[in-house]
């Protein structure tokens, strides 16, 4: 059997590094390059500050400024493809102070999906929930939500970088030196664990069925105006629910107390 020369090994290492750069670093760098428009964020922040100043003296003018701020953050969010927990948090603050309670709660929850352990988000979400006129309560967090909170000590991005790094280490070890096979497999196992946490986070975000009422709305026993009301009183803006089923113009929702009913799809906003 032909002996592997040091030259062959060096060529292999160079090839591996080149592949790592092409295959991992470039996509990661291009993906995580911030799409957030700093000018839009700064303008929204200034409008928010103006609104805050005006809120003590002229609530009407303050509301206009908060609306302007919310619109600015919405533009920045659209450019960032809806990602960014901090951006969503600021957007929610502007919405809440502009009077859009339902949309604000939905936005806080979307921010919390991206940063489950951020106490600022939880605090302001509680504040917003406290403003809901008659809330049937908030659904108990799922097991997946509890579990996801465990590994949120590091951001999703940091965990994925570590996953990729471990994968390349394992790959290099297995390719270059067959005697270190156990180390390579260990690196792969660690990468698998970390990668699973990231995948679960992504799955939790993508499978969210949460929704919030953005207007006073009634829920009915069927998907039509002719069906009788499930609850006699209309539910207030900010009521949180889970989406069960969607049909043309109507969405079946379940409230925190287990009550199910159909609501006009224009009256709620999905959390995602």
């Amino acid at each position, binding site marked *: 059997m032909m002996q592997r020369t040091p030259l062959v090994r060096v060529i292999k290492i160079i090839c*591996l590094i080149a*592949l*790592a750069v092409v*295959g*991992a670093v470039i*996509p*990661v760098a291009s*993906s995580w390059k*911030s*799409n*957030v428009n*700093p*000018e839009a*964020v*700064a*303008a929204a*922040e*200034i409008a928010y*500050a*103006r609104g*805050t100043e005006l*809120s*003590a003296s002229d609530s009407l003018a303050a509301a206009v400024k908060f609306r302007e701020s919310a619109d600015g953050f919405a533009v920045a969010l659209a450019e*960032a493809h809806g*990602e*960014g*927990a*901090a*951006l969503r*948090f*600021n957007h929610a603050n502007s919405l809440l*102070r502009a009077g859009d309670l339902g949309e604000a709660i939905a936005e806080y929850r979307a921010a919390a999906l*991206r940063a489950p352990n951020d*106490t*600022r988000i939880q*605090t*302001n979400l*509680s*504040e917003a929930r*406290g403003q809901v006129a008659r809330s049937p309560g908030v659904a108990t967090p799922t097991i997946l939500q509890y579990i996801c909170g465990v590994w949120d000590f590091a951001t*999703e*991005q*940091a965990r*994925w970088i570590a*996953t*990729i790094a471990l*994968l*390349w280490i*394992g*790959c290099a070890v*297995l*390719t270059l030196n*067959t005697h270190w096979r156990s180390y390579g497999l260990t690196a*792969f196992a660690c990468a698998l664990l970390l*990668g699973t946490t*990231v*995948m679960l*986070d*992504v799955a939790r975000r*993508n499978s969210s069925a949460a929704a919030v009422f953005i207007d006073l709305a009634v829920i009915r026993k069927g998907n039509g105006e002719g069906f009788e009301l499930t609850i006699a009183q209309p539910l207030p803006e900010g009521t949180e629910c889970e989406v069960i089923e969607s049909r043309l113009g109507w969405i079946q929702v379940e409230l925190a107390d287990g009550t199910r009913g159909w609501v006009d799809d224009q009256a709620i906003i999905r959390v995602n």
Partner: protein
Amino acid sequence: MLFAVVMSMLATSASTHAQTITVQCASQQAYVGEPVRVSVSIEDATAFEGPFIDAVDGLEITRLPGEQTSTRLEFINGRRSESRSVGIGYELIARRTGQFTIPAFTVTVGGKTLSTKPFLLNAVVSETGDLLIASITCEPSTMYVGQEGELNLEIAVKRYREEKLGITLDEGSLWSLIGRETSSWGAFGPALQKMLSENRRPRGESRIIGDTEYIVFTISKSFDPIAPGVPVVGDVRIRMDYPTKLARGNDLFFENRLSLAGSRPISVEATIAAVTVLSPPEGGRPAAWNGAVGSFTIEAIAKPVDVAVGDPITVTIRLTDESTTAGLAGLQAPVIADLPGFLENFRVPREAASGTIDGRSKVFTQSIRAASDSVRELPPISFVFFNPSSGGYETATTQPIAITVRPSAVAKLHSDEALGITTEPGENFTKVEGGLLANASTAECAEINTVNMQLIASTALLPLGIAALPFVIARVRRSREARELRTRVARQTFLQELSGIETPDPSVVERAFLHYISARTHSDRDGFTRKDAFDRLSECSVDASLLANCDDFLRQCERVRYAGGAVDIDAVRALVDLLEVATAKTKAAAA
């Protein structure tokens, strides 16, 4: 009404098209102040004007809203006839005693006037006397604005006993005689409605008033006065049909069934007992008093107590009412910004926080932020309230809470530099707006800490693929080596398969020969046929004569298998030797 006398007066209609007007009155006798229903029916008139009726002194005539229309179809001896009827209701209320002549109701149909006959109505006074008493009481009877109490509507109905039958009506029967629809319940309407919707009713309890036994029904509602004076309860008038006679009757299913043989309507307006709502005194009223009335204790918790400058500290204030009469719904937290020591050292919201009620406590939560690292404690929080028991203003105060504040970068928002706003790395915004924690910095906003499936796929597949490559290569190599070994030992395997066979079985020889050819031509041995052998050997460029010999030998094996006979073992061995050389040459040429 069971005892009602139904009176019917046919109209003096003179219609040529059988158009008629009739009037029906529920009773010839009425009680002053109590309504009597009158129904006017117009037959076979598609369009009409009216009905009209002249006013009567001392009698209030009110047309009830809506009309009842009915159509009747009849087929008699094949002839179809149709009649249409319109019913209109009236309510007559006598305002004095005496005999009233109810004038004719008239309608105009197609230019003709139809009218009913006048009829008499006798109005007498229905003496309520001591049969029904309604009163409103308050618990407590003296209270302050800001306290919570209870208003009770007590309806006392004199217990009825039919001496002739020896029967006393129970409280359930008496409640059923109270007109829930005809009575005015004022502020107690929602409370009663709620009870009825839950299939409940006020329980009647026996009470002696004077020397008489009454059944008292009580309807309660919470009372949260917002202004001093007498509580406003609206129009509360109770109406009922008080029994005058009971009877036993037989019907198809129930023998000796007890029924109401006579009753008379009575009504009474509820009187409000002495209830005083006071306003806390203005003298000695502290500026920090925000309307709280009761006897309160205050408790404050700060969390966390070890923070950096600008970090949020959640302050939870719990106000507990010891008096059990304080109105907690409208209770407001002390405004922290107005308390000494807070505005200088902390950034605090100006607005009072909204609280949640927990038993007899109300819990408020606010976020504040230390303005500098020199802050060492959370100052005492004072809460001023008016105590009705002592009749004076009192203050409850918490103890100061020790906190540790570490230095931190300070945020600056250069709002004048429009769009030029920048944030330093690591900077934290520290403003608190209302009860909300402030916005994240622009630097934080620029961070995207999430990944998506596209990124996961694009970054993970390549290293996984490369890591899997050695395993794939090794597998391919192992497979190739096994095939080469099989080729090398093909002849040996062939000989082994034929060894120990004394009488050569054609099928065994044929199978061994095919196995040999498949091994030498790198083909799968399973399902390898004579045709496959011919094709593979052709592909290996084996000499045509040898190819023909091999094919002939296999054909002979097939024939012998069915027709019987023997095959030549030596011949096949010779063929194998020749094929060994021929395929080796081919392999060498290919190499």
